[in-house]
Protein backbone atom coordinates (compact mmCIF):
# COMPACT_ATOMS: atom_id res chain seq x y z
CA UNK A 1 0.00 0.00 0.00
CA UNK A 2 1.22 3.48 -0.85
CA UNK A 3 -0.14 6.82 0.27
CA UNK A 4 -0.43 10.32 -1.07
CA UNK A 5 -1.21 13.54 0.78
CA UNK A 6 -4.06 15.69 -0.56
CA UNK A 7 -1.72 18.71 -0.68
CA UNK A 8 0.17 17.03 -3.49
CA UNK A 9 -3.09 16.56 -5.40
CA UNK A 10 -4.09 20.19 -4.83
CA UNK A 11 -0.82 21.59 -6.23
CA UNK A 12 -0.88 19.22 -9.20
CA UNK A 13 -4.44 20.24 -10.17
CA UNK A 14 -3.67 23.93 -9.68
CA UNK A 15 -0.77 23.65 -12.14
CA UNK A 16 -2.78 21.55 -14.63
CA UNK A 17 -5.60 24.12 -14.76
CA UNK A 18 -3.21 26.91 -15.72
CA UNK A 19 -1.18 24.90 -18.21
CA UNK A 20 -4.20 23.37 -19.94
CA UNK A 21 -5.75 26.80 -20.46
CA UNK A 22 -2.63 28.67 -21.59
CA UNK A 23 -0.65 26.13 -23.61
CA UNK A 24 -2.22 24.60 -26.71
CA UNK A 25 -1.16 20.97 -27.07
CA UNK A 26 1.30 20.17 -29.87
CA UNK A 27 -1.12 17.77 -31.60
CA UNK A 28 -3.61 20.62 -32.10
CA UNK A 29 -0.88 22.98 -33.33
CA UNK A 30 0.30 20.30 -35.78
CA UNK A 31 -3.28 19.71 -36.98
CA UNK A 32 -3.88 23.45 -37.51
CA UNK A 33 -0.61 23.71 -39.47
CA UNK A 34 -1.59 20.72 -41.57
CA UNK A 35 -5.02 22.28 -42.24
CA UNK A 36 -3.30 25.51 -43.27
CA UNK A 37 -1.53 23.54 -45.99
CA UNK A 38 -4.73 22.11 -47.47
CA UNK A 39 -7.35 24.81 -46.81
CA UNK A 40 -8.52 26.31 -50.13
CA UNK A 41 -10.38 29.30 -48.73
CA UNK A 42 -8.11 32.33 -48.26
CA UNK A 43 -10.39 33.55 -45.49
CA UNK A 44 -10.13 30.10 -43.91
CA UNK A 45 -6.34 30.15 -44.10
CA UNK A 46 -6.28 33.56 -42.50
CA UNK A 47 -8.38 32.26 -39.60
CA UNK A 48 -6.06 29.27 -39.13
CA UNK A 49 -3.05 31.58 -39.10
CA UNK A 50 -4.68 33.79 -36.49
CA UNK A 51 -5.45 30.77 -34.32
CA UNK A 52 -1.79 29.73 -34.45
CA UNK A 53 -0.70 33.29 -33.67
CA UNK A 54 -3.18 33.38 -30.81
CA UNK A 55 -1.75 30.15 -29.34
CA UNK A 56 1.74 31.67 -29.51
CA UNK A 57 0.69 34.84 -27.68
CA UNK A 58 -1.14 32.80 -25.02
CA UNK A 59 1.87 30.56 -24.34
CA UNK A 60 4.35 33.42 -24.33
CA UNK A 61 2.33 35.72 -22.09
CA UNK A 62 0.86 32.93 -19.98
CA UNK A 63 -2.71 34.06 -20.62
CA UNK A 64 -5.64 31.82 -21.57
CA UNK A 65 -5.93 30.76 -25.22
CA UNK A 66 -9.67 31.51 -24.98
CA UNK A 67 -11.52 33.63 -22.41
CA UNK A 68 -13.91 30.71 -21.88
CA UNK A 69 -11.62 28.73 -19.63
CA UNK A 70 -14.42 26.28 -19.27
CA UNK A 71 -16.00 24.06 -16.69
CA UNK A 72 -13.21 21.94 -15.21
CA UNK A 73 -13.83 18.32 -16.22
CA UNK A 74 -11.53 15.88 -14.45
CA UNK A 75 -10.87 12.26 -15.30
CA UNK A 76 -9.27 10.66 -12.27
CA UNK A 77 -7.82 7.16 -12.23
CA UNK A 78 -7.17 6.06 -8.69
CA UNK A 79 -4.96 3.03 -8.10
CA UNK A 80 -6.68 0.65 -5.71
CA UNK A 81 -3.48 0.29 -3.69
CA UNK A 82 -3.21 4.00 -3.03
CA UNK A 83 -4.40 5.59 0.19
CA UNK A 84 -5.26 9.29 0.09
CA UNK A 85 -4.39 11.01 3.38
CA UNK A 86 -4.86 14.47 4.89
CA UNK A 87 -8.39 15.08 3.62
CA UNK A 88 -10.89 13.92 1.06
CA UNK A 89 -9.93 13.51 -2.58
CA UNK A 90 -12.94 15.29 -4.12
CA UNK A 91 -12.36 18.27 -1.83
CA UNK A 92 -8.69 18.33 -2.86
CA UNK A 93 -9.48 18.22 -6.58
CA UNK A 94 -11.93 21.12 -6.20
CA UNK A 95 -9.42 23.06 -4.09
CA UNK A 96 -6.86 22.62 -6.88
CA UNK A 97 -9.36 23.98 -9.41
CA UNK A 98 -10.19 26.90 -7.10
CA UNK A 99 -6.51 27.84 -6.71
CA UNK A 100 -5.61 27.29 -10.36
CA UNK A 101 -8.42 29.48 -11.68
CA UNK A 102 -7.57 32.23 -9.17
CA UNK A 103 -3.80 32.16 -9.57
CA UNK A 104 -3.91 31.78 -13.37
CA UNK A 105 -6.36 34.69 -13.91
CA UNK A 106 -8.73 32.20 -15.53
CA UNK A 107 -12.39 33.08 -15.95
CA UNK A 108 -14.83 31.84 -13.34
CA UNK A 109 -17.76 30.58 -15.40
CA UNK A 110 -19.74 28.35 -13.06
CA UNK A 111 -23.19 29.28 -11.75
CA UNK A 112 -24.55 27.65 -8.62
CA UNK A 113 -27.93 26.70 -9.99
CA UNK A 114 -29.24 26.30 -13.56
CA UNK A 115 -32.02 28.78 -12.79
CA UNK A 116 -30.76 31.25 -10.20
CA UNK A 117 -27.54 31.66 -12.28
CA UNK A 118 -25.44 33.06 -9.42
CA UNK A 119 -21.71 32.67 -10.08
CA UNK A 120 -19.90 30.51 -7.52
CA UNK A 121 -16.95 32.87 -7.92
CA UNK A 122 -14.20 30.24 -7.99
CA UNK A 123 -15.08 28.01 -10.95
CA UNK A 124 -16.02 25.09 -8.68
CA UNK A 125 -17.43 22.55 -8.52
CA UNK A 126 -15.55 20.58 -11.13
CA UNK A 127 -17.19 17.66 -12.93
CA UNK A 128 -15.19 14.65 -11.75
CA UNK A 129 -15.20 11.19 -13.33
CA UNK A 130 -13.51 8.57 -11.15
CA UNK A 131 -12.22 5.22 -12.17
CA UNK A 132 -10.64 2.71 -9.82
CA UNK A 133 -7.73 1.01 -11.53
CA UNK A 134 -5.02 -1.42 -10.49
CA UNK A 135 -1.75 -0.12 -9.08
CA UNK A 136 -0.70 2.48 -6.55
CA UNK A 137 -0.69 5.72 -8.56
CA UNK A 138 -3.22 8.41 -9.31
CA UNK A 139 -3.68 9.77 -12.83
CA UNK A 140 -5.44 13.11 -13.19
CA UNK A 141 -6.51 14.52 -16.55
CA UNK A 142 -8.09 17.95 -16.76
CA UNK A 143 -10.17 18.87 -19.79
CA UNK A 144 -11.52 22.42 -19.33
CA UNK A 145 -14.70 22.52 -21.43
CA UNK A 146 -15.94 25.68 -23.08
CA UNK A 147 -19.67 25.89 -23.58
CA UNK A 148 -19.82 27.38 -27.07
CA UNK A 149 -18.97 23.89 -28.23
CA UNK A 150 -20.54 21.99 -25.30
CA UNK A 151 -23.97 23.47 -26.14
CA UNK A 152 -23.79 21.90 -29.61
CA UNK A 153 -23.63 18.30 -28.36
CA UNK A 154 -26.46 15.80 -28.83
CA UNK A 155 -27.54 12.35 -27.70
CA UNK A 156 -30.00 9.96 -29.26
CA UNK A 157 -31.27 6.53 -28.31
CA UNK A 158 -31.60 4.62 -31.60
CA UNK A 159 -33.40 1.37 -32.25
CA UNK A 160 -30.97 -1.44 -33.14
CA UNK A 161 -32.79 -1.72 -36.50
CA UNK A 162 -31.83 1.88 -37.31
CA UNK A 163 -28.28 0.63 -37.68
CA UNK A 164 -25.08 2.37 -38.67
CA UNK A 165 -26.50 4.57 -41.50
CA UNK A 166 -28.87 6.33 -39.09
CA UNK A 167 -26.11 6.84 -36.53
CA UNK A 168 -23.76 8.26 -39.17
CA UNK A 169 -26.46 10.70 -40.33
CA UNK A 170 -27.05 11.78 -36.75
CA UNK A 171 -23.36 12.53 -36.18
CA UNK A 172 -22.96 14.52 -39.41
CA UNK A 173 -26.28 16.32 -38.86
CA UNK A 174 -25.25 17.36 -35.36
CA UNK A 175 -22.13 19.04 -36.79
CA UNK A 176 -24.15 20.49 -39.69
CA UNK A 177 -26.68 22.11 -37.36
CA UNK A 178 -23.94 23.44 -35.08
CA UNK A 179 -22.45 25.30 -38.06
CA UNK A 180 -20.18 28.13 -36.92
CA UNK A 181 -21.29 28.09 -33.26
CA UNK A 182 -18.75 25.65 -31.75
CA UNK A 183 -15.77 27.57 -33.24
CA UNK A 184 -14.58 25.29 -36.02
CA UNK A 185 -12.26 23.65 -36.83
CA UNK A 186 -13.65 21.28 -34.23
CA UNK A 187 -12.86 17.87 -32.79
CA UNK A 188 -15.86 15.53 -32.72
CA UNK A 189 -16.13 13.04 -29.85
CA UNK A 190 -18.54 10.16 -30.38
CA UNK A 191 -19.71 7.64 -27.79
CA UNK A 192 -21.54 4.56 -29.03
CA UNK A 193 -23.18 1.86 -26.92
CA UNK A 194 -23.49 1.41 -23.17
CA UNK A 195 -26.41 3.23 -21.55
CA UNK A 196 -27.53 6.83 -22.01
CA UNK A 197 -24.98 8.31 -19.58
CA UNK A 198 -22.25 5.90 -20.62
CA UNK A 199 -22.52 7.04 -24.26
CA UNK A 200 -22.29 10.69 -23.17
CA UNK A 201 -19.27 9.90 -20.97
CA UNK A 202 -17.54 8.07 -23.84
CA UNK A 203 -18.17 10.98 -26.21
CA UNK A 204 -16.48 13.31 -23.72
CA UNK A 205 -13.63 10.87 -23.09
CA UNK A 206 -13.08 10.49 -26.85
CA UNK A 207 -12.07 14.16 -26.93
CA UNK A 208 -9.02 13.34 -24.78
CA UNK A 209 -7.48 11.21 -27.51
CA UNK A 210 -4.65 13.03 -29.29
CA UNK A 211 -5.45 14.20 -32.83
CA UNK A 212 -4.04 11.72 -35.33
CA UNK A 213 -4.55 8.67 -33.11
CA UNK A 214 -7.27 6.33 -34.39
CA UNK A 215 -9.61 3.92 -32.65
CA UNK A 216 -7.61 0.66 -32.23
CA UNK A 217 -10.38 -1.37 -33.91
CA UNK A 218 -9.92 -1.12 -37.66
CA UNK A 219 -13.58 -0.79 -38.60
CA UNK A 220 -14.03 2.10 -36.18
CA UNK A 221 -10.79 3.73 -37.36
CA UNK A 222 -12.25 3.57 -40.89
CA UNK A 223 -15.55 4.98 -39.67
CA UNK A 224 -13.69 7.89 -38.04
CA UNK A 225 -12.04 8.72 -41.38
CA UNK A 226 -15.28 8.36 -43.31
CA UNK A 227 -17.14 10.69 -40.94
CA UNK A 228 -14.26 13.20 -40.99
CA UNK A 229 -14.46 13.35 -44.79
CA UNK A 230 -18.24 13.75 -44.74
CA UNK A 231 -18.03 16.50 -42.12
CA UNK A 232 -15.38 18.36 -44.09
CA UNK A 233 -17.63 18.16 -47.16
CA UNK A 234 -20.18 20.28 -45.29
CA UNK A 235 -18.18 23.37 -46.28
CA UNK A 236 -18.59 25.09 -42.89
CA UNK A 237 -14.84 25.78 -42.70
CA UNK A 238 -12.74 27.65 -40.14
CA UNK A 239 -15.08 29.80 -38.00
CA UNK A 240 -17.93 28.90 -40.35
CA UNK A 241 -16.78 31.40 -43.00
CA UNK A 242 -16.68 28.59 -45.58
CA UNK A 243 -13.83 26.20 -46.33
CA UNK A 244 -12.50 22.66 -46.28
CA UNK A 245 -11.50 22.44 -42.62
CA UNK A 246 -14.58 21.98 -40.47
CA UNK A 247 -13.17 19.23 -38.23
CA UNK A 248 -9.62 18.24 -37.32
CA UNK A 249 -10.62 14.77 -36.10
CA UNK A 250 -13.49 12.44 -35.30
CA UNK A 251 -12.77 10.20 -32.29
CA UNK A 252 -15.11 7.30 -31.58
CA UNK A 253 -15.29 5.29 -28.36
CA UNK A 254 -17.42 2.16 -28.18
CA UNK A 255 -18.88 0.04 -25.35
CA UNK A 256 -21.10 -3.08 -25.29
CA UNK A 257 -24.79 -2.27 -25.03
CA UNK A 258 -28.20 -3.85 -24.33
CA UNK A 259 -30.06 -6.13 -26.76
CA UNK A 260 -32.74 -3.44 -27.10
CA UNK A 261 -30.54 -0.39 -27.50
CA UNK A 262 -28.18 1.66 -29.62
CA UNK A 263 -27.22 4.83 -27.75
CA UNK A 264 -25.18 7.43 -29.62
CA UNK A 265 -23.72 10.64 -28.22
CA UNK A 266 -21.81 13.45 -29.90
CA UNK A 267 -19.68 15.87 -27.88
CA UNK A 268 -17.99 18.69 -29.79
CA UNK A 269 -14.78 20.48 -28.87
CA UNK A 270 -13.73 23.77 -30.40
CA UNK A 271 -10.24 24.17 -31.89
CA UNK A 272 -9.04 24.96 -28.36
CA UNK A 273 -9.06 21.25 -27.57
CA UNK A 274 -7.58 21.29 -24.09
CA UNK A 275 -6.46 18.44 -21.91
CA UNK A 276 -3.48 17.86 -19.71
CA UNK A 277 -2.51 14.89 -17.59
CA UNK A 278 -0.32 14.14 -14.60
CA UNK A 279 0.41 10.85 -12.87
CA UNK A 280 1.30 11.12 -9.20
CA UNK A 281 3.28 8.37 -7.50
CA UNK A 282 2.38 7.52 -3.95
CA UNK A 283 4.95 7.10 -1.18
CA UNK A 284 5.45 3.93 0.84
CA UNK A 285 2.96 4.06 3.66
CA UNK A 286 4.35 5.09 7.04
CA UNK A 287 2.44 2.34 8.84
CA UNK A 288 4.15 -0.49 6.96
Amino acid at each position, binding site marked *: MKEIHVNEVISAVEKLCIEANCILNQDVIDALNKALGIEE*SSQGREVLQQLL*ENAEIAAKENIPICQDTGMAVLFVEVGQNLHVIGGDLTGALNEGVRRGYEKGFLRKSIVKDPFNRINTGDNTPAVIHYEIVSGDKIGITIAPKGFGSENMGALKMFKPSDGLPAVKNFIVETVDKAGPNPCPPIVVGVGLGGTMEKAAYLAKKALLRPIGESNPVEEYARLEQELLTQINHLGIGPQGF*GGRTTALAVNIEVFPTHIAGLPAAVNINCHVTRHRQVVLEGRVSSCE
Partner: protein
Amino acid sequence: MSNKMVETRKISAPLDDTTAASLRCGEKVLISGVVYTGRDAAHKKMTEALARGEGLPFDMKGQVIYFVGPAPAPPGKVIGSAGPTTSGRMDAYSPGLLANGLKGMIGKGLRSPEVIQAIRENGAVYFGAIGGAGALLASCIKEAEVIAYPELGTEAVRRLVIEDFPAIVLIDSLGQNLYETGRKEYQILG
Protein backbone atom coordinates in the same frame (compact mmCIF):
# COMPACT_ATOMS: atom_id res chain seq x y z
CA MET B 1 -15.60 36.22 -51.65
CA SER B 2 -13.41 33.63 -50.07
CA ASN B 3 -10.66 33.47 -52.64
CA LYS B 4 -10.67 37.10 -53.65
CA MET B 5 -8.37 39.27 -51.60
CA VAL B 6 -10.64 41.70 -49.84
CA GLU B 7 -9.18 45.01 -48.68
CA THR B 8 -9.41 45.53 -44.95
CA ARG B 9 -11.38 48.66 -44.19
CA LYS B 10 -10.80 50.83 -41.13
CA ILE B 11 -13.97 51.95 -39.39
CA SER B 12 -14.74 53.64 -36.10
CA ALA B 13 -17.20 52.91 -33.33
CA PRO B 14 -19.79 54.17 -32.50
CA LEU B 15 -21.09 53.61 -36.03
CA ASP B 16 -22.77 56.27 -38.12
CA ASP B 17 -25.74 55.33 -40.35
CA THR B 18 -23.82 55.80 -43.60
CA THR B 19 -20.95 53.53 -42.58
CA ALA B 20 -23.31 50.88 -41.23
CA ALA B 21 -25.34 50.89 -44.45
CA SER B 22 -22.25 50.69 -46.65
CA LEU B 23 -20.68 47.62 -45.01
CA ARG B 24 -21.13 44.40 -46.93
CA CYS B 25 -21.22 40.78 -45.87
CA GLY B 26 -17.71 39.25 -46.13
CA GLU B 27 -15.97 42.61 -45.79
CA LYS B 28 -13.01 42.65 -43.42
CA VAL B 29 -12.75 45.55 -41.03
CA LEU B 30 -10.48 46.94 -38.32
CA ILE B 31 -12.62 48.67 -35.71
CA SER B 32 -11.27 51.49 -33.53
CA GLY B 33 -13.11 53.50 -30.91
CA VAL B 34 -15.53 52.68 -28.12
CA VAL B 35 -17.62 49.52 -27.81
CA TYR B 36 -19.55 48.09 -24.86
CA THR B 37 -19.45 44.52 -23.61
CA GLY B 38 -22.57 42.56 -22.78
CA ARG B 39 -23.56 38.91 -22.76
CA ASP B 40 -26.36 36.76 -21.35
CA ALA B 41 -27.01 38.26 -17.91
CA ALA B 42 -26.44 41.91 -18.93
CA HIS B 43 -28.77 41.54 -21.92
CA LYS B 44 -31.46 40.13 -19.65
CA LYS B 45 -31.04 43.04 -17.22
CA MET B 46 -31.07 45.67 -19.99
CA THR B 47 -34.20 44.15 -21.52
CA GLU B 48 -35.93 44.08 -18.14
CA ALA B 49 -34.96 47.73 -17.59
CA LEU B 50 -36.54 48.67 -20.92
CA ALA B 51 -39.71 46.76 -20.04
CA ARG B 52 -39.96 48.75 -16.80
CA GLY B 53 -39.51 51.98 -18.76
CA GLU B 54 -36.13 52.62 -17.14
CA GLY B 55 -32.97 53.87 -18.83
CA LEU B 56 -30.12 51.73 -20.14
CA PRO B 57 -26.56 51.82 -18.74
CA PHE B 58 -25.45 53.77 -21.84
CA ASP B 59 -27.15 55.61 -24.70
CA MET B 60 -27.65 52.88 -27.30
CA LYS B 61 -27.70 55.22 -30.31
CA GLY B 62 -25.06 54.21 -32.84
CA GLN B 63 -23.31 51.94 -30.35
CA VAL B 64 -21.68 48.57 -30.87
CA ILE B 65 -22.04 45.75 -28.34
CA TYR B 66 -19.31 43.12 -28.11
CA PHE B 67 -20.63 39.78 -26.83
CA VAL B 68 -17.77 38.86 -24.50
CA GLY B 69 -17.12 37.78 -20.94
CA PRO B 70 -13.41 38.48 -20.54
CA ALA B 71 -10.97 36.58 -18.36
CA PRO B 72 -9.63 38.59 -15.40
CA ALA B 73 -6.83 41.04 -16.18
CA PRO B 74 -3.42 39.81 -15.04
CA PRO B 75 -1.11 42.44 -13.46
CA GLY B 76 0.02 45.02 -16.03
CA LYS B 77 -2.81 44.29 -18.49
CA VAL B 78 -6.10 46.13 -19.00
CA ILE B 79 -8.05 42.93 -19.65
CA GLY B 80 -7.55 39.17 -19.84
CA SER B 81 -8.29 36.94 -22.80
CA ALA B 82 -11.34 38.42 -24.56
CA GLY B 83 -12.77 36.64 -27.59
CA PRO B 84 -16.42 36.57 -28.68
CA THR B 85 -19.06 34.30 -27.18
CA THR B 86 -21.85 32.55 -29.15
CA SER B 87 -24.27 35.31 -30.22
CA GLY B 88 -27.36 33.10 -30.58
CA ARG B 89 -27.96 33.25 -26.84
CA MET B 90 -28.59 36.99 -27.19
CA ASP B 91 -31.19 36.48 -29.97
CA ALA B 92 -34.08 36.94 -27.58
CA TYR B 93 -32.77 40.37 -26.55
CA SER B 94 -31.04 41.87 -29.61
CA PRO B 95 -34.16 43.06 -31.54
CA GLY B 96 -35.23 45.18 -28.54
CA LEU B 97 -31.82 46.82 -28.30
CA LEU B 98 -31.64 47.38 -32.07
CA ALA B 99 -35.01 49.15 -31.87
CA ASN B 100 -33.41 51.42 -29.27
CA GLY B 101 -30.59 52.53 -31.54
CA LEU B 102 -27.98 49.75 -31.29
CA LYS B 103 -26.07 49.79 -34.59
CA GLY B 104 -23.58 46.96 -34.37
CA MET B 105 -22.94 43.66 -32.64
CA ILE B 106 -19.68 41.71 -32.47
CA GLY B 107 -19.90 38.01 -31.74
CA LYS B 108 -19.70 34.62 -33.41
CA GLY B 109 -22.22 32.12 -34.65
CA LEU B 110 -25.72 31.98 -36.12
CA ARG B 111 -28.50 34.53 -35.54
CA SER B 112 -32.26 33.95 -35.63
CA PRO B 113 -34.49 35.16 -38.49
CA GLU B 114 -35.98 37.71 -36.03
CA VAL B 115 -32.54 39.22 -35.38
CA ILE B 116 -31.71 39.32 -39.10
CA GLN B 117 -35.03 41.08 -39.73
CA ALA B 118 -34.25 43.62 -36.97
CA ILE B 119 -30.76 44.20 -38.44
CA ARG B 120 -32.38 45.05 -41.80
CA GLU B 121 -35.09 47.25 -40.31
CA ASN B 122 -32.58 49.26 -38.28
CA GLY B 123 -29.77 49.44 -40.83
CA ALA B 124 -27.43 47.66 -38.42
CA VAL B 125 -24.49 45.26 -38.81
CA TYR B 126 -23.47 41.96 -37.21
CA PHE B 127 -19.69 41.52 -37.10
CA GLY B 128 -17.79 38.31 -36.41
CA ALA B 129 -14.60 38.17 -34.40
CA ILE B 130 -12.53 35.00 -34.29
CA GLY B 131 -13.91 32.66 -31.65
CA GLY B 132 -11.18 31.20 -29.49
CA ALA B 133 -8.61 33.86 -30.37
CA GLY B 134 -9.07 35.63 -27.04
CA ALA B 135 -5.37 36.26 -26.40
CA LEU B 136 -4.89 37.89 -29.81
CA LEU B 137 -8.07 40.00 -29.56
CA ALA B 138 -7.19 41.20 -26.04
CA SER B 139 -4.13 42.91 -27.49
CA CYS B 140 -6.47 45.23 -29.47
CA ILE B 141 -8.23 46.36 -26.27
CA LYS B 142 -6.55 49.45 -24.85
CA GLU B 143 -8.89 50.42 -22.02
CA ALA B 144 -11.60 48.60 -20.07
CA GLU B 145 -13.89 50.00 -17.42
CA VAL B 146 -16.94 48.42 -15.77
CA ILE B 147 -19.84 50.87 -16.19
CA ALA B 148 -22.83 48.78 -15.10
CA TYR B 149 -23.88 45.64 -13.23
CA PRO B 150 -20.53 45.07 -11.45
CA GLU B 151 -22.21 42.27 -9.49
CA LEU B 152 -22.22 40.19 -12.68
CA GLY B 153 -18.42 39.80 -12.64
CA THR B 154 -17.23 38.74 -16.07
CA GLU B 155 -20.76 39.44 -17.38
CA ALA B 156 -20.75 43.12 -16.25
CA VAL B 157 -21.11 45.84 -18.89
CA ARG B 158 -17.70 47.29 -19.74
CA ARG B 159 -16.75 50.27 -21.83
CA LEU B 160 -13.83 49.22 -24.03
CA VAL B 161 -11.52 51.37 -26.07
CA ILE B 162 -10.35 49.25 -28.99
CA GLU B 163 -7.76 49.83 -31.67
CA ASP B 164 -7.69 48.06 -35.03
CA PHE B 165 -9.85 45.25 -33.67
CA PRO B 166 -10.11 42.69 -36.53
CA ALA B 167 -13.61 41.58 -37.53
CA ILE B 168 -15.58 40.47 -40.55
CA VAL B 169 -19.08 41.51 -41.59
CA LEU B 170 -21.25 38.42 -41.06
CA ILE B 171 -24.68 39.96 -41.65
CA ASP B 172 -25.04 43.32 -43.36
CA SER B 173 -27.88 45.84 -43.32
CA LEU B 174 -29.44 44.12 -46.36
CA GLY B 175 -29.64 40.88 -44.41
CA GLN B 176 -26.94 39.12 -46.46
CA ASN B 177 -25.30 36.40 -44.38
CA LEU B 178 -21.70 35.22 -44.76
CA TYR B 179 -22.50 31.95 -42.98
CA GLU B 180 -24.78 31.06 -45.90
CA THR B 181 -22.80 32.41 -48.83
CA GLY B 182 -19.35 31.35 -47.55
CA ARG B 183 -20.37 27.80 -46.92
CA LYS B 184 -22.07 27.19 -50.27
CA GLU B 185 -18.78 27.63 -52.12
CA TYR B 186 -17.18 24.71 -50.34
CA GLN B 187 -20.08 22.34 -49.79
CA ILE B 188 -19.70 18.97 -51.51
CA LEU B 189 -23.08 17.29 -51.83
CA GLY B 190 -23.74 13.59 -51.97
